[in-house]
């Protein structure tokens, strides 16, 4: 056996080399796609801000940007790159950028907006997020609202109660957990819940019962 292997060792080495490069390329392509797609999405986003319409980042896209998400430090400085959020958290969209789950809510308006992102690309830095972290979200009408992280939870995949709607404005960021796992499947979700910093004046209900 060893002799035969030795006889073919150049071929085996070549094969292993090709396989290694294919894997590297595949992984690198995913990372690069996630990174560079954001530039195209950024363009579509600036078009959207200009004319208020939905723009696809590329002609065959199945989605369009709905928001710009930024991390803000306590001193009001922006941290890291802005993330452009796509509509619809399907697997394909998530490869290009964080994406919102469409539901009974309006971004920066009312209800719970859930934004999902991949733990190995766009939402990798959720790992460093602490309660108190500020998030800045710009919607398509150029309105900007700052959110403050109020809690961080790790929930089982089946436990979707944090997904459900509510009336008060809330921002929920979600990614897979644990962060340093390599697989594409995960049983846990890392959920960051943020509430608007300047709470909107709520219309008080006249107490009918009293």
């Amino acid at each position, binding site marked *: 056996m*060893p002799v035969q292997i030795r006889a073919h*060792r150049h071929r085996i*080495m070549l094969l*292993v080399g090709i396989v*290694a*490069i294919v*894997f*590297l390329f*595949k*992984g*690198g392509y*995913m*990372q690069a796609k996630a990174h560079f797609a954001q530039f195209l999405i950024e363009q579509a986003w600036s078009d959207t801000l200009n004319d208020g319409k939905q723009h696809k980042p590329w002609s*065959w896209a*199945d989605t369009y940007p709905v928001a710009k998400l930024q991390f803000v*430090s*306590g001193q009001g400085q922006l941290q890291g790159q802005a993330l452009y959020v796509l*509509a*619809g958290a*399907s*697997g*394909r969209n*998530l*490869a290009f950028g964080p994406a*919102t*789950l*469409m*539901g009974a809510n309006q971004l920066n308006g*009312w209800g719970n907006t859930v934004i*999902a992102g*991949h*733990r*190995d*690309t766009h*939402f990798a830095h959720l790992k460093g997020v*602490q309660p*108190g972290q500020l998030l800045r979200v710009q919607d398509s009408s150029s309105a900007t609202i700052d959110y403050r*992280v109020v*809690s*961080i939870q*790790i929930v*089982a*995949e*089946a436990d*979707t109660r944090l*997904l*459900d*709607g509510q009336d008060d404005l809330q921002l929920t960021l979600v*990614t897979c957990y644990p962060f*340093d*796992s*390599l697989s594409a*499947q*995960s049983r846990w*979700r890392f959920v960051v819940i943020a509430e608007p910093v300047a709470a909107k004046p*709520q219309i008080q*209900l006249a*107490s*009918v*019962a009293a």
Partner: protein
Amino acid sequence: MDIDYHRSTNPCPLRGAFLSQGAARLNFVALLLWLNHHKWQRWLALTMYTTLTLSTILPRSVLAQSDDETLLGSSQLIYSLSSPLSEPTSEPLTESAEALLSETSHPNAFAFSALPIETQVDMQISGWVNRVQVKQFFHNDTAQWLNGMYLFPLPHDAAIDSMTLHIGERRLQGEIFPKAEAKQQFEQAKTSGKQASLLEQQRPNMFTTQVANLAPGETLVVEIAYQQLVNYQAGEFSLRFPLAITPRYDNDPAVTSSPANGNYAQAKLLAAKKVGSASSVGKVNLNIHLDAGLPLASIDAPYHRLKQASLEQGITALQLTQTLAADKDFVLRWRPELTQAPTAVAFAQSGKTHRRTTAEDTVLADKQGGENDYAIVMVMPPQAEHAEKMARELLLVIDTSGSMHGDSMAQAKSALQYALAGLTPADTFNVIAFESTVQTLSTFALPATAANLGLANQFIQNLVADGGTEMAPALLRAFAHTSPDELQPSRDTRLKQVVFITDGAIANEQQLFELIADHIGDSRLFTVGIGAAPNGFFMQRAAQTGRGTYTYVGKLDEVSTQVGQLLAKIEHPLVSNIDLRLSDGTIPDYWPVNIGDLYLGEPVMVAVKLKSNQHQYQSDELIVSGNFGGSQWQRRVGLQRDDKAKGLDLIWARKQIEALMLSKNSSNVERVKRQVTQIALDHHLVSPYTSLVAVDNRVVRPAEQMSLDGIASTLLPQASMGQWPQTASESRLFLAIGSMLLLLLGAYWVSYAGVMQRGLLMCLQRIRGKRCQYR
């Protein structure tokens, strides 16, 4: 409040990013082995290198199967910011509280502890109505004063109308208030040292109870009562109570020990351990009194074991003895003897369950002409064997946009084929596929002949998922769809069913919704959402407008079975266009307003509000009418007032609230909120905007002692409308495998090409040579 912000550097670098001492030693041994010429030693060395490389590149989480899951649920909260509203308490910490909160950076930080909650459930099923009492025992076995909070699920149609706080022998009845007001009352009681309880709705099927100032060693009992209709389908009654237990995430070092929040989180962890988190999964006792009113053929609970005993007058007592499946809700099914299958039931009650007593209200009630009656009406349509099956036109609309690519598409295809197989020759059908453009099988609906079905199967097989998602043209196409003999009115009795399958997000939902409302006509719209992306709320509303149903399929491997079930159900439409009126022609106030079609084995089930005098003097009968097999079908149901009937107004109000909540959109949020609040306050119901609160007037907690917050949450709600998206990719796995292989290759090349060997040997020889010279 000031937030000291820490940008945390990554506290846990990738494991194995550096070599430990042991690994370095192993490396050296491997190198020595390599230098020897024996073949087996080389192989051994190669294996060692492989292991080393693997352990260097792969984080431990891949190699070791983590056992971080326990079936015992407790607090899911990892850490949270202490609310800016809670002022720093001036009260000094007690000794043990200080121990718990040692080194806590925030003096007013919450300490979370797991509270053991025991639950006692008593169900009184009488006929069609189920009255349930849930007693929650908050027991404090610590030396601290505790405030307890318990998050728990209830059935999504539960109309909760009462909460009683038991303090020893005393009972405090909860009052209904708008949510903010109730919360304020509770918080006031909490800070002033009074005992109180608060029941809030978080989601339609998730609630929290809170108790304030639970003394050490004390037990407070919160008793909740709700009303519910039992389900009836195909001759079988059933009910469901959520008992499924959620897996819990054990506190992970990566989260809890990062420097920024370490103290804070650890304090809570400590607290949780001290209070005893292991016992936090509550015990549930369940007792049922089943008074079906009919002789029963069978009683069955698929996931739980019950003890059964017959009481007098056909009442059966049941007691939960053993849970067979921890991840399943409690389900009870009972079936009356076959000959007794009910065909129409109506019973009424006069007045509300919770009456107001103020003089103003009495005056108001008099002006309105007395109190109202509430009734529940159930009508079973004639069953299929007596009648022709209704001919139908089935339109299958399928999303073939890029996002459906892969597994979703394969599943959807098999579901479509299943649908085609269920057609009979009397039916017609068509298939519409859409992405950026719309593609149809045929311009007109085709009769379901073997040849046409063959064509359709081929069409479906050839569908490819690609492109964008443009729903409007596809929907228009489906609704506008006409058969070639459109001009012949005799064929118009066909029921048009549109099954709309998509996994895409719906963007311009308001426009689409208007489009559906304008064009739906007499068609029925069944929406099917696949995966994490669909806009469930919209799809549900669309289906309701289209008098159909919404099916949500979270797991991809369930697409064909779930869609299959839907299609099997809608295969037998019996009665359509159902209307309800009184015998004098007036239409009562009934919910749900849009009664969907009736399929095989399904009854009409509505809650009706009637003016008392009207129902007594003018019309004692309700007329349910509809279109049955092409002809008019009608059934009269006499209303009897029943002394046993209770809480029907609650069910009526609950159904109305449900309908209102579903109609909520950006433009009417505030109006819906006002309406729901009003209805809920009138009927003493817990709703998204109203809560029940009970406050004792005695101050029990000494002002110098602080109370800690405890939290418990064990149960999982019934499958909610949604799923977390899959938020990970293999990119890093691929990168790791690729670089590992390259490294191996490098190592191999270095050895066999002899670079290292030659170099080392030369070096050794030189040293020897020198040594020789010295000698």
